[in-house]
């Protein structure tokens, strides 16, 4: 078995203690939720930590609540299985329930948390490997090296965002509360729209730093005619990270006419990709009518043209691109079903 490097394990019971412990570690501290991503990454030594702050004892980080407005307020430490099986999430945010239900395998969903999946590190076939493996290539851009093995001569890491929950949360216009240790400049709290979280750098694809703790996920109320779906491309029926993930949102009026549409794709590059040109084609089409079929055909073409999978994660990237329109279609079908 690969050895887990040594670190100090802290087990605070409040958010304030947790963020202070990470702040005190001077960049060498990490939050630990379910551990299904962090622990293998520590073993692979592309994440290093002197202090690991386990969040399991912080009750304030748990729970799924329906807000007065009819939206959701989700504690990031809520397990993936609890999200996937929550009747409230299934009703208000069906794409999220579907997406989370496809994450990894049953044991991982028991341990893994929604906050952990939101904050999941990027993945690449050249980084998610042991220290020995990476050292025999002279490492890579993401950690310890200067070359990219995906894009020859590439200067920016293109490791892929691989969190199934991300495209679903993007279509749901979620917002995220973060908190870090207060300083003389502020109380350390901020709220980001989900779309603002990510940046196009696989080395660290978040606009928050590692000492900022995700403390709450807010999902605004969805209208009566809201439909959401998720389609995941993977070789096996379980365990695997997405080779492609597509979340689709359709808000329809009482006549079945689409008023708002959104499609977001994951597992391409460092950030989720909103295929706006494609989803815009759906607005005005009517479910079950010829106008929808026509729109769907155009959406598939537009999505194909906008998505360019790279040989960053395993699997034939040309085939993955061919699967874009198929999985857009399947995500929409899952939303309508």
């Amino acid at each position: 078995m690969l050895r887990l490097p040594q670190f100090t394990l802290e087990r605070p019971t409040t958010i304030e203690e947790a963020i202070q412990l990470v702040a005190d570690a001077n960049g060498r501290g990490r939050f630990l939720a379910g551990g299904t991503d962090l622990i293998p990454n520590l073993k692979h030594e592309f994440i290093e930590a002197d202090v690991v702050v386990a969040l399991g004892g912080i009750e304030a980080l748990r729970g799924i609540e329906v807000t007065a407005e009819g939206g959701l307020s989700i504690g990031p430490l809520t397990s993936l299985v609890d999200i996937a099986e929550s009747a409230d999430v299934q009703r208000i945010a069906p794409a999220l329930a579907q997406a989370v239900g496809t994450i990894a395998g049953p044991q991982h969903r028991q341990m893994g948390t929604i906050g952990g999946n939101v904050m999941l590190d990027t993945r690449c076939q050249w980084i998610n490997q042991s220290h020995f493996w990476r050292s025999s290539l002279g490492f890579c851009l993401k950690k310890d090296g200067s070359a990219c093995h995906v894009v020859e001569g590439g200067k920016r890491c293109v490791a892929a965002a691989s969190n199934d929950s991300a495209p679903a949360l993007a279509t749901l216009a979620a917002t995220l509360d973060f908190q870090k240790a207060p300083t003389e400049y502020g109380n350390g709290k901020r709220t980001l729209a989900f779309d603002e979280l990510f940046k196009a750098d696989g080395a660290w694809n978040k606009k928050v730093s590692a000492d900022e703790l995700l403390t709450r996920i807010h999902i605004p109320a969805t209208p009566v005619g809201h439909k959401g779906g998720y389609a995941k491309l993977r070789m096996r029926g379980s365990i695997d990270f997405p080779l492609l993930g597509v979340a689709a949102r359709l808000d329809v009026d009482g006549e079945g006419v689409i008023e708002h549409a959104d499609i977001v794709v994951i597992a391409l590059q460092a950030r989720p990709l909103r295929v706006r040109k494609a989803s815009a084609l759906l607005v005005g089409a009517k479910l079950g009518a010829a106008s929808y079929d026509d729109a769907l055909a155009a959406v598939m073409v537009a999505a194909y043209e906008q998505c360019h999978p790279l040989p960053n994660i395993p699997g034939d990237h040309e085939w993955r691109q061919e699967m874009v329109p198929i999985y857009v279609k399947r995500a929409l079908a899952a939303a309508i079903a």
Partner: protein
Amino acid sequence: MGARDQHGTGAPWGDEFRAVGKSLRKIEGLSKATGEAVYADDIMLPGMLHAKLLRSPHAHARIVSIDTSKALALEGVHAIITGADLPICYGVIPWTKDENALAVDKVRFIGDEVAAVAAIDEDTANAAVRLIEVEYEVLHSYFDPNESLVRHEPAIHPGNKHGNISKRVELEFGDLESAFASADVVMEEDFVFHGSTHAAIEPHCAVARASADGLVTLWSSTQITHYVQREVSRVLGLPQSRLRVIQPTLGGAFGGKSDPFSLEFVVAKLALITGRPVKMLWTREEVFYAHRGRHPMQMRYKTGIKKDGHLTGVEATITIDGGSYSSFGLVTTYYSGQLLTGPYDFPNYRFDSTRVFTNKPPCGPKRGHGSVQPRFAFEIQLDELSEAIGMDPIEVRRVNDIGENTKTVNGQRVTSNGFGRCLDEVERASEWKTRRGKLPLGTGLGVAGSMYISGTNYPIYPNDMPQAGIQLKVDRSGLVTAFTGGNDIGQGSSSVVRTILCEELGLDPLDVRVVAADTDLCPVDLGAYSSRVTFMVGNATIDACRKLRKQIVEAVAAKWEVDAKRVYLGSGEVFDTEQRETKITTREAFEIAEAFHDTLGSTGAYNTPTLGGDYRGGSIGASPAYSFTAHVVEVDVDVETGMIDLKNVWVAHDCGRALNPMLVAGQMEGSAYMGIVEAVFEDHKVNRFGLHSGPSLLDYPLATALDTPELHALIVESIDPEGPYGAKEAGEGPLHPALPALSNAIYDAVGIRLRELPFTPGRVLTALRAKAALDKETKGASC
């Protein structure tokens, strides 16, 4: 074959079997389920050190220098060894010893072992490994076997006579020219078999201890204790009698624990140097580097058939990618040709197989050693030939069934043969006649057949001693203990031994112990490979039981003052057949026998008869009995994605007699699973740097329960004249047809012929597109 090796096929002591044929629980089943079983990594000894390896980051390089001084200076480091400490080459085949426990002068693939550290704990050993400084001179690397065929400088093994050619075998039987001339249809096509590995759940682990008087004990997760003892003692310069090798409970092997491995030599050497016990446990990544998995093969097959379905001849040209060392490669090269000559009768055959070295993890034996790849190619071609002559593919296989008590074109003796019944079974169970060719687009059925060995009379190193030996100890307690060198690797060999003891001596299973795979305690047995264990160890066990039984019956008869023929022993009690009230328990009979003979015991052995064709290599693949298999696979192909959904596999397998139907069915299901998963999910390969493309069970995916088809085990019992009670193998044969039957099912489903593995969705889509283009063209032309 002496009379001692033939024991009849019926129930030994009455009309019916008492233990044979019953689905008795595996001997180690509960201990594995409860966690009580002790695997190599569970062994903890006082003062034990942990060892780690430094591995090569280069695919092919000369070692200029190694500096271990910084590593040795690290606190907690006890010893460091390099190739200079273990300079003697080893290898399981006597003529191709080309491996060193630690690299001497050269490294040959990324992951090759260079140095080893023993330290107080794993972390210290790992830290020390990173402090070892090695200077390399990088050499040209070979990743393409076709390059190794023609380029020999630099040679991967400079001492090798044939440059980068590891082994070439050319054999011809009959007259191919007239064979093809007389055929109505001749097809010639190329097939590609990718590599795959075993992925046993338990990673390799070894622990060694050296006593003060120089006796070494080595616990290792090996499937062949005897070969480990031979090679480790030789490399360490120890007499074999002073090296005790023990195989603890094993978590799967599938051929991947057949070779002696670096870690066994290293822990033994480090234990001798440090005077402390030393353990080495490999990571999953290291297991992928150790590999010895299925060889990639590029195969060209040319086969002729007559309109009546009879095959006229087969010609094969095969390039085998061996990776960096020989391992069992000599045998692989022979097997790639020698094992194709059943279950079909073709009068003319030629094969030309060449194994080459490349700078990749070494290939070796994996379940269905050397014959799964040719079977893949041939059974697809047979399907195509069936179509060409307009005959049902099952019918073509029937027409060519070689039958029983015959000889193959390459001189192998075939005795029992249930292949025809296997075809009947899969045809019936899959509803072939009403469904094949009539299912909706995307769904299809495919068939394939195969034949495999139940051990071979080629004992790796030539010798006249028994291939299987067993010893029984019995005393007044009523307990019978069997000491067998046979390795139980989860396939159930110790359970087979117990079943036979219960049958022969009328014992309750709990009154039998089996001590296996401990070279100090057990007679030599050649171990778990070539599907030899049930056949050979089974026969040896019957032999020992009958000798023991004779002693007991003789003593009881003397006591009762009756003829020995009147004494019945077999159902848990012993009685006088002519005076049934004269009755004692088996335990009491043991007491009488112990008093009569003094301390009791017996030995049993098995050796194969002289078999095989009268030519060089004619004994390789010659088996005392062959098993036969047929599969029908049902598949759904998603024409949008190219993804394959495995629905059903009907597995009919002729295992002779099923000594334990539950274990036989388990082997059949496990084999079919392993084969079909190789086709769809697995690809053991290196990337453009020569580095393993993803040495983990995430990047090298195996089917989960969700991806596994329904597996239907259909046991066919042909009752072999020489097998124990008629039994033959069941552990490897049932794998073979899975891959070609899947390809044939895909053809039935969507009309594409996949001749290159693995069947990735991208490949399926490409083939579908090519077919659509061709269909359009043909349609256009006919208009």
